[in-house]
């Protein structure tokens, strides 16, 4: 069967000593930053993009992916042991997970999280393997018109499901697109919005922007708050093994979480965080005794953990098959691919099968590594939490500055990073989220190209976007999403669901 032969291609690629090594490094780094508060996968991935430039593309993507889903594992560890979620997707885990820890069941909570995540990761890998080629083949039928509408849908979907004001996010997207077109116009070569700075002729570097907004912005934000000291609960090794009764209790939640996460992850705008929140709400709804939640219900850990891992992995699908990043991390991965000269899109599966399938299989291998890293070795990670933030952030800044410089050996990129650090912080204070801006930045140039081609094909008729049936459907869905996001009653329910945790 095609699926098996694809997976075997992937396996042979992923098992190479080099790629196993990259996977391990990614997973360790991911766990590390997942555990350390104040440093997230977005900032880390953008910091490492310059480093991966010298590596081969498959290895780079494997490592960066490892950082991403590794952070989901690491975040749960701190959420359970210290009630300090390392990642936004671990917020729900902290609710019941920490309660379990306080009741002396820390080991059980940790293993529930790890096993749930592993199961979800396995299933998600299979889903990607089965589903992605179909999606890519369907997308090959797409022309410039369909692509433009798909990008519009992707952008709108990514903000409609997220928290915060829709209008703010849309404005941020438009701003991001504007920044994205800085540089030479692809049609005429005319330099646009470069303000006479020659280094901007190739456009504003996504890594500089990402590091400024996520790296520097995050640091400023953290320093503005106070350093809090928390004590960690110990989890001896023997307590890690769950009993059969425990496994019976957690299994349905894991299954539900996996299903929910897999679906929500594929949707643009979905991903780890949304999946975990949705799963927690679902578990509470279907539980026979909802009062247990908040007091150490094992389903409150199993469901969201499975969901966030499934969501994290399936969120690769839109980017790898359609070339549409559904969240910031995927936008950065797309940036990494572009840096290596690979244009993300439906052709990737056919032109670079070792890259695609190697990445998919290594995701499963990474999950395996992570279970080992997170369970027996949990004690080591907890010790790391002792590193005070005041020593950490200067080190992060050194890494950021050097990393950004090495992209083009240009100090201008450092200044761009500083500018976006300032801009990012100010906007965040005013309610403008950085993620939509970054998405707009990545998709902007492509959108202009598709728009130009579409209008050329239609000889200047803008109605072409509703005349092509697929495009019309895509735009209609986008419109529906806007309506859903704006309707007061649904908005209240959504805010409630997000407030729950």
């Amino acid at each position, binding site marked *: 069967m095609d699926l098996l032969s694809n997976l075997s291609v992937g396996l042979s690629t992923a098992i190479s000593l080099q790629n196993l090594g990259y996977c391990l490094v990614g997973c360790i780094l991911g766990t590390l930053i997942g555990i350390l508060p104040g440093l997230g996968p977005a900032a880390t991935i953008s910091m490492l993009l310059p480093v991966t430039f010298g590596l081969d593309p498959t290895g780079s993507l494997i490592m960066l992916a490892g950082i991403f889903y590794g952070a989901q594992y690491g975040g749960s560890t701190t959420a359970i042991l210290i009630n300090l979620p390392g990642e936004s997707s671990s917020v729900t885990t902290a609710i019941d997970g920490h309660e379990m820890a306080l009741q002396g069941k820390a080991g059980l909570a940790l293993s529930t999280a790890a096993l749930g995540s592993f199961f979800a990761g396995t299933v998600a890998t299979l889903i990607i393997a089965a589903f992605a080629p179909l999606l890519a083949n369907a997308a090959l039928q797409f022309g410039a018109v369909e692509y433009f509408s798909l990008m519009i849908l992707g952008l709108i979907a990514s903000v409609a499901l997220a928290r915060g004001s829709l*209008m*703010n996010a*849309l*404005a941020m997207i*438009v*701003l991001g*697109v*504007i920044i994205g*077109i800085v540089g030479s*116009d692809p*049609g*005429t070569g*005319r330099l*646009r*919005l470069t303000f006479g700075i020659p280094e901007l002729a190739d456009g504003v570097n996504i890594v500089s922007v990402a590091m400024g907004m996520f790296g*520097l912005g995050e*640091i*400023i934000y953290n*320093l*503005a708050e106070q*350093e809090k000291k928390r004590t960690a609960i110990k989890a001896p090794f023997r307590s890690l093994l769950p009993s059969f009764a425990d496994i019976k209790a957690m299994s349905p939640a894991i299954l539900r979480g996996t299903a929910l996460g897999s679906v929500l992850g594929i949707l643009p705008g979905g991903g780890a965080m949304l999946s975990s929140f949705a799963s927690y709400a679902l578990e509470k709804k279907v539980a026979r005794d909802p009062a247990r939640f908040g007091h150490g219900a094992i389903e409150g850990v199993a469901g969201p953990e499975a969901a966030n891992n499934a969501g994290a992995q399936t969120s690769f699908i839109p980017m790898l098959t359609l070339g549409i990043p559904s969240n910031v991390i995927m936008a950065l991965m797309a940036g990494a691919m572009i840096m290596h000269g690979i244009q993300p899109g439906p052709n990737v599966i056919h032109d670079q099968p070792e890259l695609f399938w190697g990445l998919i299989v290594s995701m499963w291998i990474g999950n395996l590594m992570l279970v080992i890293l997170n369970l027996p070795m949990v004690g080591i990670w907890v010790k790391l939490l002792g590193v*005070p*933030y*005041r*020593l950490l*952030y*200067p*080190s992060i*800044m*050194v*890494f*950021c*500055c*050097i990393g950004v*410089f*090495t992209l083009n*050996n240009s*100090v201008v990129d*450092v*200044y761009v*990073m*500083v500018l976006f*650090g*300032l801009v990012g*912080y*100010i*906007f965040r*204070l*005013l*309610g*403008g989220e950085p993620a939509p801006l970054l998405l707009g930045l990545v998709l902007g140039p492509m959108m*202009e190209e598709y*728009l*130009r081609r579409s*209008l*050329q094909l239609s*000889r*200047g*008729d*803008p109605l072409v976007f509703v005349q092509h049936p697929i495009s019309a459907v895509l735009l209609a869905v986008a419109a529906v999403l806007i309506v859903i996001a704006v309707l007061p009653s649904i908005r209240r329910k959504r805010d409630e669901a997000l407030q729950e945790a």
Partner: protein
Amino acid sequence: MIARYLGDRSILLGIILLAIAAAVLIIASDYALGTTRRMGPGYFPMVLAVLLAGFALALIARGIFGDHDPVDAFAALPAVYILGGAASFGLLLRGGGLLVAIPVMVVVVGFASRQLSFVASLMLAVVLAIGSVVVFVTLLGQPIPVVGDWLRG
């Protein structure tokens, strides 16, 4: 009254975005617009600027007519030190090299934390400077100046 308006998040955001949109509009009007059928370099930027202006005005309207949404305090001090430190790195890298740029940056950035003593930041500065030279230049072979133009005589 004015203070209430200027302290509202949506209004401030709207004003800033409106200014940016106006700037883009002015700059892009210099580029050839072309026609819808054959978009010139100025076409897309103009469309985006108009779109952004629209959102900006909507935000301002929301700020005026909707609930008051006050801005949180601007943590000027950490921002100044962090951003200033990174900027100083950029300024000093070519001239002073890593061995000058990194310590200066770490010390400047160190002021942003109330818990980091000056002595500690100096020690950290030295460690990070040497460490990054070892990791980035020696191990990874990146062409970053270790000692800059000023010091090379």
